[in-house]
C-alpha cells in the first residue's frame, strides 16, 4: 500500500500504451460487423411474433408450407383432370399436357398430387393439432394439479409412450378393414400425444413453482384461469414444438400406413399414390414420375415443419441465435491478430 504514489499508472505519467489497440466506436463496430437497426414495423408486433418473422429459417418453412397448402386448396384451378379417372394414356412421360405424366392406370400425376395434398395435409395437420391438444390438456393437468391426478394421468402417458407407435397403429388399422384417411388421422391423434404430454407436464411442474403463479393463487385467481393465462402462455414454444413434431410424425405415419396397403386404396393421398406406384412397379418400369412427386411433397412438408421448429427453438433459446454473428466476430478478431476466447 505504501507504493501507491509511485506505482499508480497515472502518477508515473504513463502514456497510454501504444500497443493497446484502440477500440472502434459503437457505430463503427456496428458497420464492421454488419449489425443494422431493424425496420420499425416489427416493433408493433408482440416480441415472440416479431422474433419469428425476422427468422430466416422459420419464414422459409412457413413459405414452403403456404405454397403446399395453397396449391392443394386451389387444385381445381390448377388442373382440369379428375384425380380418380383416367386422364390419358398410361405411363405417359411428363410433358405439356400432363405436367408430371400419368400413372399406370392413366391418371394424371399432377392432379393426384394436388388433390391428394388436400387429404394428406389435412390429416397430417389435423392429427398433429389433435395430438398436441390432447397432450397439452393432459400434461398441464398432471403438472398443475399434482398428487393423485398426476399419478393417474402419468400412468396413461407412460402407457402411450411405451407402446411402440407404428406397430400399434398397424394393429388398430387392420382391425378397421380399409381405414379411410379420417380413421387413420384419428388413430394417429390418439396414439401420438404421449411425447407432448410428457414435455408439457415437465414444463408445467417447473412453472408452477414460479412466484408469479403463487402470486396469482394468493390473489385468489381461479385455477382454470391460472392454467390458461399464467402457465400456458409461458409454454407456447413447447406447445408449438409439440405440434410441429406431432404433425411431421402424423404425415409420415399416414403415408407409411397407406404405402403398406392399410389405407383405403380408392382414396387419393400422397401415401396411396406411393402404394399404387409400388404396386405397379413404377420404378422398375422406369416411370420415376409416378414415385418421385409424392415423395418429394412429403419430404418438403417435413422439412418445412422442421425449419419452423428450428426457428421456435432459436426464439426460446437465444443462445442458439448468437451463433449467427460468429463469422463476423471471428473475422473482426483475425483482422486484429487476435483469437476468439472460448473454443
Amino acid at each position: 500500500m505504501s507504493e501507491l504514489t509511485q506505482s499508480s499508472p497515472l502518477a508515473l505519467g504513463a502514456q497510454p500504451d501504444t500497443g493497446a489497440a484502440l477500440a472502434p466506436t459503437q457505430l463503427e463496430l456496428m458497420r464492421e460487423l454488419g449489425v443494422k437497426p431493424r425496420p420499425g414495423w416489427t416493433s408493433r408486433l408482440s416480441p415472440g411474433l416479431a422474433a419469428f418473422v425476422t427468422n430466416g429459417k422459420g419464414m422459409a418453412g412457413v413459405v414452403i408450407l403456404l405454397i403446399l397448402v395453397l396449391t392443394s386448396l386451389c387444385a381445381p384451378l390448377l388442373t382440369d383432370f379428375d384425380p380418380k379417372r383416367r386422364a390419358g394414356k398410361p405411363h405417359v412421360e411428363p410433358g405439356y399436357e400432363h405436367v408430371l405424366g400419368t400413372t399406370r392406370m392413366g391418371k394424371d400425376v399432377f392432379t393426384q398430387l394436388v388433390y391428394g395434398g388436400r387429404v394428406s395435409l389435412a390429416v397430417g395437420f389435423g392429427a398433429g393439432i389433435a395430438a398436441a391438444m390432447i397432450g397439452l390438456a393432459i400434461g398441464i393437468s398432471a403438472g398443475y394439479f399434482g398428487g393423485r391426478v398426476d399419478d393417474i394421468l402419468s400412468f396413461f402417458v407412460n402407457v402411450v409412450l411405451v407402446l411402440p407407435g407404428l406397430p400399434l397403429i398397424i394393429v388398430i388399422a387392420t382391425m378397421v378393414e380399409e381405414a379411410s384417411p379420417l380413421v387413420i388421422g384419428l388413430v394417429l391423434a390418439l396414439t401420438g400425444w404421449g411425447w407432448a404430454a410428457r414435455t408439457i407436464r415437465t414444463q408445467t411442474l417447473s412453472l408452477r413453482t414460479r412466484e408469479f403463479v403463487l402470486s396469482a393463487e394468493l390473489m385468489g385467481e381461479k385455477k382454470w384461469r391460472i392454467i390458461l393465462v399464467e402457465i400456458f402462455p409461458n409454454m407456447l414454444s413447447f406447445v408449438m414444438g409439440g405440434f410441429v413434431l406431432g404433425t411431421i410424425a402424423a404425415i409420415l405415419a399416414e403415408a407409411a400406413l397407406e404405402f403398406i396397403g392399410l389405407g383405403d386404396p380408392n382414396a387419393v393421398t400422397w401415401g396411396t399414390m406411393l402404394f399404387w406406384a409400388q404396386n405397379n412397379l413404377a420404378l422398375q418400369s422406369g416411370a420415376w414420375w409416378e414415385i418421385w412427386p409424392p415423395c418429394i411433397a412429403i419430404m418438403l412438408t417435413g422439412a418445412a415443419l422442421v425449419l419452423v421448429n428450428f426457428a421456435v427453438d432459436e426464439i426460446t433459446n437465444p443462445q442458439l441465435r448468437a451463433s449467427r454473428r460468429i463469422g463476423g466476430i471471428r473475422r473482426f478478431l483475425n483482422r486484429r491478430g487476435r483469437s476468439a476466447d472460448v473454443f
Partner: protein
Amino acid sequence: MSLAELERSGPATAPGRTVVEMDGVDKDFVLGSLLNRTVLRALSGISLKLVSGRALALVGESGSGKSTCARMVARVFQPTRGTISFEGENIAGFTGRRLERYRSEVQMVFQDPFGSLNPTQTIGYHLERPLRLHRPEISGKAVEEEMLALLERVGLRPAADYLKRRPHELSGGQRQRVAIARALSVQPVVLLADEPTSMLDVSVRLGILNLLEDMKSQRQLAALYITHDIATARYFAEDTAVLYAGHLLEQGPSEEITERPQHPYTQLLIEAVPNPARKNSTTRSRRATDIPLWTNQSRGCPFVSRCPRVTAICKETMPAPTQIGSSHTVRCHNL
C-alpha cells in the same frame, strides 16, 4: 373507494391494533418416501404479533424458516400445531367467501422481481386482475384511472407509459415497484414482504424500503419484513425477531436488538455485518457450521453446534423466553 379518496380519508385500521397473531405455531413437512421418512420441523413454537402501523422484521439465514412463516400468514400452508389469527379469528377455518376476502386483506411482495411477474403479460394486466377480483365496485374507465394512480403512487412516472410494457422491459427496482403496486391495489391490512430488496442493487434498495415505509404509515398497514440483513431490518422495522432453525431466539425493538443483543446468535449476526470502521478485524476461527436440519425428533436448543456458551442443559431443553426489557425477550439458558 379509489386510491385518491382513500388517501384523503386516512387509514383503514386504527394504529396500534394487533392484526395478526401467531400463537405457538409449529410446521412440519414430511420428506422422503414411505420407507425413508423424515419429518422436517420448519417452525417450532412461533409466537409473534403483527401490529397495524408497525413493521416486524424476521431476521434469519436461509433455511431458518422465515419464508415459511410468511407463507403461513398468507395461508399457503396450514399450521401443524398452534393457531394463526387475523383480527381475532382463526384463519384455519376460513373457506369460501371469507377466504376470498382474506386474500385481499393479506398481500405478499416476493423476493425475486424477475419471478414475481408473468413475463408474457403487460404491467396493466398485473394491476387489472386484482382490481377485477377484489374491487368490483370499480368498473369501466375508473379501472384504468385507478391503475394509473397506483403506478404514480409507487413512483413509476409517466404512469401511462408503463401500462403497456412487459416485465422484461423494466429494471429490477421498477418491477418491485409494480409488485408493490399490485399488492396495494386490493387495499390490504397486512403486508408480507419476503426479502423484497435482496435481489436489487444497493442504491435501489433504500428507494424501495422508503416506499414501503410510506405505504405502511399512510395506510397503517401491519408489515412483516423478512430479511437476512439485520441492518435493513433495523432501518425499516420498529421491531425485530431473530429466527434460527425455526425457533425464535430473540425478539424486541430493533434498536435494542442491534445495540444490545443478548442472544449469542444475534451477536454473531451483528458481527457478520460488514463494518468499514472495523478494518482488519482479528476475531476469527469460528468455522461456521451448517444450520441443523431440525426434525420432530430433535431436542434442545438448535444453536448448540455454534454457540460459545453451550452447556449440558442446552442439549436437553429449549430455553423458555426470558423477559429483558418491556418488550424484549430472549431464549437462552446462559445469559
